[in-house]
C-alpha cells in the first residue's frame, strides 16, 4: 500500500488540476480558481472514501488551505 501522503497527493493533484511539484501547503481555497465548491465537495468525499474517515460539516468548512486538509486528515488517522 502506498504511503498515505502519496495517496492524498494523488487526490489533491486530480481535484486541483495541478502538477505534484506545484502543490504547496499554502494554496488557499478562496484564492485558487479550480478550488470551487464542487471541487471542495469532491476533495472531501474522495479523501473520506480513500481513507475510510468521515469529516463533520465544521471540519469541511475549516479546510481553507492544502495544509489544513493535510492536518485534518492526520488528525483523523491519529485517532
Amino acid at each position, binding site marked *: 500500500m502506498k504511503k498515505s501522503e502519496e495517496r492524498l497527493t494523488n*487526490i489533491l493533484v*486530480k*481535484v486541483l*488540476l495541478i502538477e505534484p511539484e506545484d502543490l504547496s501547503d499554502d494554496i488557499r481555497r478562496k484564492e485558487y480558481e*479550480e478550488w470551487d*465548491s*464542487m*471541487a471542495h*465537495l*469532491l476533495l*472531501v*468525499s*474522495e479523501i*473520506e*472514501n480513500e481513507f475510510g474517515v*468521515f469529516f463533520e*460539516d465544521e471540519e*469541511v468548512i475549516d479546510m481553507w488551505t492544502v495544509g489544513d486538509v493535510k492536518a485534518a486528515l492526520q488528525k483523523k488517522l491519529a485517532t
Partner: protein
Amino acid sequence: MVTKMNSSEAVDNILESIKDEDSYLDLWSAYKRIQKLELGPSEDKKKAIRLALIGSSTLEPVAACLDIKTRLMGLKPKTFVGGFNTYRQEALDDSSSLYSHEPDLIVLAVDAASLLDDLFTANFVRMEEEERQEHLEKMVHDLVGVAEALKNNGSGLVIVNNFIVPEFTPLGIVDNKEKTGLRRFFREANRMLESTFRDESRMFVFDLDSATADYGKSRVVDWKTYYRGSVPFAAEFIPTLASEYARYASAFKGLTKKCIVLDLDNTLWGGVVGEEGMEGIKLGPTSPGIEYLEFQKSLMSLYNRGVILAVNSKNNWDDAMKPIREHPHQILREEHFAAFRINWQNKAQNFLELAEEINIGLDSMVFIDDNPHERAQVRQAVPDVMVVEMPDNPQLYRKTLENLKVFDVLSLTQEDMKRGEMYVGKRKRAELEEKTGSIEDFLRTLNLKVHVQQVDKFGKPRVVQLIGKTNQFNLTTRRYTDSEVESFRESDDSAVFSMAVKDKFGDEGIVGVAITKIEANDCIIDSFLMSCRVIGRSVETAFLSKIVSYARERDANRVIGEVIPTKKNAPARDFYERHGFEEVGTSPEGVTRWVLDLEKEDIPVPDWIQMVEE
C-alpha cells in the same frame, strides 16, 4: 495562448492518461482539464455532438463523465449542464441558454421528490386510493410537460430518466396488498412514461430504475454528497450511469457495431475440434458444455436482432464445419454466418478479407476469441476492430457479451431484424453469379422487384437511419435528423423517396433514399443514397427513373444532381455520368454538378426489374 493544434494534442494527452481508468475522480479531473483548454466547437461534423443535462439535482458530475466517455468513443462533445433545479425554466423558455446550445441530445434527470409534495412519502399511507391516483397523474403530467417542451423547442433527442422504485416503503411487507402501494405507484408512473413516449421517435425513456437496480439500489446513493451537495449518486456509480447515457450518443452518431467475428475452438465450444473430434468437444445442455450453449444462445439473440455473425478460426475447414453442420447441440448453423475464414493464415489478414466480403468497415466489427495472443495480434494489426477482452473462464462469456452494449440503434426497423438473413442471401447470390454467364442473365434470374414511394411515417425511421449511416453509395453524404426529414416531407417543394427492393433470395426492405427540391423549373436531387448491400443490381437506375417521372409530373424541365466526393463514396461518383447527365461545373472543393434535360433525355427502367406500384 494555446494554439489550435496544441489544444487538440493536449486533449489527446489527457484522454490517453485516463483511458484505462474508470474512476469518477479521474474522469472528472480530465473533464475539468479539457474545459480549461476552452476548445471551440469541433469542425468535424461526423464527430461533433452537443450534449445537455438538465434536472433537479447537481448534474455536473454525471455531465463530466458523459463528456469524457463520449470523447473516449472518438466523439468531440460540447456539454451543457443545467443549473440546480432550474430545469423548468430552461425547458419552457425557448430563449434559454439550453436552446442556444442547440443540443443534439438532452438528458432530463428529474427526481420524484422534486415533483411531489414535501410530505408525500410521509403521508402516503394515510392517502385514499383516489388521492394517490391524483398524485400519480400530476407527477407524470408535470414531467411529460417538461419533456414535451424540450422536444418542441429543440430538434435533438430527449432522454427522460424514469423514476427509481424505492426500496423503502412505510407499508413494509404489505406494500403490494394495497391497490396502489408505494412501489406500485412508481412502477405505474414508469409504465405511463413509457407508453406516452413509445411512438415518439426523438424521445426515449431511460430506465434509471433498472440501471440502479443492476448496480444495487442501496449502493447508488452516497448520503454524504447527497446532503452536502445535492449530488444524488455515489462516485462509484456515476461513471456507470454516464456509460448508459453514452449509448444514446453512440447510436445517434452511428458508432453502432454491426458484426461479431467469432473464433471457434474454446470460444463457441469447449476444446479443440481438430484434436478431440466432434464427439470430444464440450457443447450441450449439461456442464461442462452448457456455458458454451448459453453463449451461443445469446449470440443468436443478437443475430435475430440484426447483428451479423462471421467466423475467423485457425482450423481445417472440414474439421471446423462438422460441428457447425452436424453437432446436435450447436445453435449457430451455417445459415447464421455471413462469411467464414477458416484457414491457417493470420487472423488480421482474415479480418481484411471478411470486411471486404461482407462489405462493412473494420470499425463496425467486434472480435471474440479466447486466445490472448490472437487478440493482441488483431488489436495491433487492425486497430479499428473492437477486440473484446474475454475472461479466462467460459462461464463468464455470456455475461461478457451481454455487457458489451455496442449494438444500440435508435430505432429497430424490420430491415435491422432481418439483416442476418440478408447476408446469407448475399452469399447465395454470389454463388449463383459465379454459375451464370453474363451479368444481365444473372440479374434476369433474380426476379428483382423495386418499390419507390414518397416515404410515409412507417418508413421514416429506416430512411433517417440510412441517411445517417450510408457512406459508400451516397452522392452528397448530407446527414439529416428525423425532424429535418420531417420538414422535407411536409414541404410542398421537397419530397423524400424511399426505395424497397426484393428478389427471389429475400426481401431487403428499404435500401434507398432520395430527397428532391423543386426550384422554378428544376428538380434538384439534394440527396441520393443506397445501401451497399444492393450495389450491382441496377436498382439505382430504376430509382432514378422514378424520380425523373416525378420531376415531369411537377413540370420540371431539368433534373439537377450534385456529387460531393468523400473518402468513401467512390462507388457512386460516376452515377450521373452513367445515366446521361451532362456535367455543368466543378466547384473548387471538387463538387460536380450534373444536368439532365427532360425534353431530350429519359431514364428507362431496366427490363429485368419489375416496378411495384402501391
